[in-house]
């Protein structure tokens, strides 16, 4: 049995074997991976696993070889690779029927829905995140929460926060911590913090890997190509995680989302959220802010930035974001 890295670009044979193995295991040959390894018995590929950032995915073992516990060396090799990259935390996204195999390898379930289980291993883990939330917790009678990417922070986001403040005594704003958007996590956090600096009732928090993240909701970042059925599963997982693991810590009673006229993926997300939260948390869908009968969206701001149309940008974002964007112009245009 030999462990090898698979290079799809230069090895079409390995790629075909890999696709065949995954199909046999009932998985989609998802090519959005950074690193793939395979276990060979002679010329036969008998087991495979991949990494995408710190997410273990596309794991399959040939049905003829399942008696050998090939999963252990496979996962160990992937964890070693993450270790080399100083990444001490890994996720696995799998079906409930295979979750026990991963649990036997030291993974812990973060959240589960009827079709999907998200497991993690290493540190900083969900406990650490919950601890961080607990430290930032403010006593409240009716706390609200908003999750936003703020790419970049617009008047629409600001209006959403203000609407939430009208009914809630404390509003937690979770800013998505994934570097897959035009503006990086730090920039987006800064824009939100600047915009609400004068509001002591607003608490800005990172989501780390636990909300609308690569791990919980990868389709969000592939809005154009996302399969809506897949997005639905992921959205349900994300919503469940929020309900079970995050809202109880901060004593959140109310979740606010922006109405979504454009993106089907975000719409799926809002629908799933409504379904999962029913009867447990109040969900309010806030209609989009409109400027000149045009709904405000971050997409528009990015388009205006790309076209160097600062007049439009100024109309769509609060002054704090405008100054920030002006200051980081070369980056914003990249």
């Amino acid at each position: 049995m030999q462990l090898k890295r698979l290079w799809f670009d230069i090895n079409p044979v390995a790629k075909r074997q890999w696709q065949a193995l995954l199909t046999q295991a009932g998985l989609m040959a998802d090519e959005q991976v950074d690193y793939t390894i395979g276990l060979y018995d002679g010329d036969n590929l008998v087991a495979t696993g991949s990494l995408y950032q710190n997410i273990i995915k596309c794991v399959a073992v040939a049905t003829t070889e399942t008696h050998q516990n090939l999963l252990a060396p496979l996962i160990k090799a992937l964890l070693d690779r993450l270790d080399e990259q100083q990444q001490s935390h890994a996720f696995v996204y799998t079906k409930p029927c295979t979750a026990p195999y991963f649990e036997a390898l030291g993974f812990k379930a973060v959240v589960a829905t009827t079709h999907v289980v998200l497991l993690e291993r290493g540190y900083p883990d969900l406990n650490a995140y919950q601890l961080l939330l607990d430290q930032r917790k403010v006593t409240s009678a009716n706390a609200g929460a908003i999750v936003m990417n703020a790419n970049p922070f617009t008047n629409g986001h600001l209006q959403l926060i203000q609407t939430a403040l009208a009914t809630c005594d404390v509003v937690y704003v979770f800013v998505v911590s994934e570097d897959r958007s035009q503006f990086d996590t730090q920039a987006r956090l800064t824009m939100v913090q600047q915009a609400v600096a004068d509001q002591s009732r607003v608490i800005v928090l990172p989501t780390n890997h636990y909300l609308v993240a690569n791990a919980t909701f990868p389709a969000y970042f592939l809005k154009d190509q996302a399969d809506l059925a897949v997005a639905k599963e992921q959205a349900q997982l994300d919503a469940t995680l929020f309900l079970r693991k995050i809202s109880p810590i901060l004593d959140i009673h109310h979740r606010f989302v922006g109405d979504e006229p454009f993106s089907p993926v975000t719409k799926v997300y809002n629908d799933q959220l409504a379904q999962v939260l029913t009867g447990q948390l109040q969900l309010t869908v806030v209609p989009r802010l409109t400027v000149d009968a045009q709904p405000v969206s971050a997409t528009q701001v990015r388009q205006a930035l790309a076209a160097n149309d600062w007049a439009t940008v100024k109309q769509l974002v609060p002054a704090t974001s405008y100054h920030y964007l002006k200051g980081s112009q070369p980056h914003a245009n990249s």
Partner: protein
Amino acid sequence: MQTAKTVTVGTMESSDIMITLKPNASGITIDLDSNVKKQFGAHITALMTEVLQKLGINDIAVEAVDKGALDCTIKARTIAAAYRLQGKTDYDWEALNSWNV
């Protein structure tokens, strides 16, 4: 000692134990997953605690995935994890041997 680092040693093969050390505010907490936990769980936990204490590590969270490792393996893996956590490679063999490992 306090540390922000995490280290992992060992494999998930049969007869081995994979030990991960993580920061912990105070005390030694051990989260053991073993297929012989019912029979030897308490023993394995006590053994790891003893080794860590002897090496002067009193505040640590341990995550161990045991696949039926023998005592000698558990000790060796724990020692290796502790040394790696502290970034030390100058194993004090005399002291280690004196515990009758």
